[in-house]
């Protein structure tokens, strides 16, 4: 039973941590629900959940509009949870070249990447095996446990 996708297909995907969407704008809602569920599990508050969801929506919209589907015809999303950091990755087969900031504040284009950076603690863009990865991370805020006496 050979499979051109190899190892990745041999591991059953956990729907909480992996999602594949068609490169179509009507799929954005599914991508947002996936991000929102992960943010809720991680324990983010309402405002941060919305920020994570919006940043995800912008990244996936960008892949749909300007990128290209992976070989299976979809855009891949995945979640990585670490104790203090929640990361959502978006992988597509396009070549994402971030544009310089628009000089005109009233431009009607190119606002997505600026918004992503403002919404999450870290945005990482990388080129992996001919694919573009956009990784969005939210850090867990450390609440002050108590006032120290010394």
């Amino acid at each position, binding site marked *: 039973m050979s499979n051109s996708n190899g190892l990745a297909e041999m591991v059953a995907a956990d729907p909480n941590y992996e999602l594949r969407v068609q490169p179509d704008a*009507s799929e954005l809602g599914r991508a947002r629900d996936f991000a929102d569920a992960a943010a809720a599990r991680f324990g983010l508050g309402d*405002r941060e959940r919305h*920020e994570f969801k*919006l940043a995800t929506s912008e990244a996936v919209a960008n892949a*749909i*509009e300007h990128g290209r589907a992976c070989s299976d015809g979809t855009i891949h999303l995945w979640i990585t949870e670490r104790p203090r950091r929640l990361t959502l990755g978006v992988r597509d087969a396009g070549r994402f070249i971030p544009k310089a900031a628009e000089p005109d504040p*009233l431009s*009607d284009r190119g606002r997505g990447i600026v918004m992503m950076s*403002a919404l999450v603690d870290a945005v990482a863009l990388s080129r992996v095996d001919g694919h573009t990865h956009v990784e969005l991370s939210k850090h867990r805020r450390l609440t002050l446990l108590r006032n120290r006496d010394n």
Partner: protein
Amino acid sequence: MSVTMTFEVRHWEAGPQAHVVAASGELDLNAAPTLRETLVRLTDLGRIDLVVDMTDATFVDSTVIGVLVGRLKALRALGGSLRLVCQNENVLRTFEVSGIDRAFAMHPTLAEALAEHNTVR
């Protein structure tokens, strides 16, 4: 397979000067073309004072903000106006993050947007 309505765009005349466009639901890349076409068509019909009512919008993304900014510029160039109605905290936050929230006249209710409109014009 059931089809779920994720967004809706309606519009109506609100007096001699203002035309209201109510955009509801999830306003993203999927909804942006419908909203853009509606706003452009109304402008072409000479409705240059528009109020976009997002009271029932649950989500707005950068493409929709781009549509609104594009219309704001076009309407201003024609001597018209574009007012927004929104109270949803998440949607307001989206405008804030986009950095252009101050470019718009933002009102908490449609009644206030229309009242202001009538006193200004």
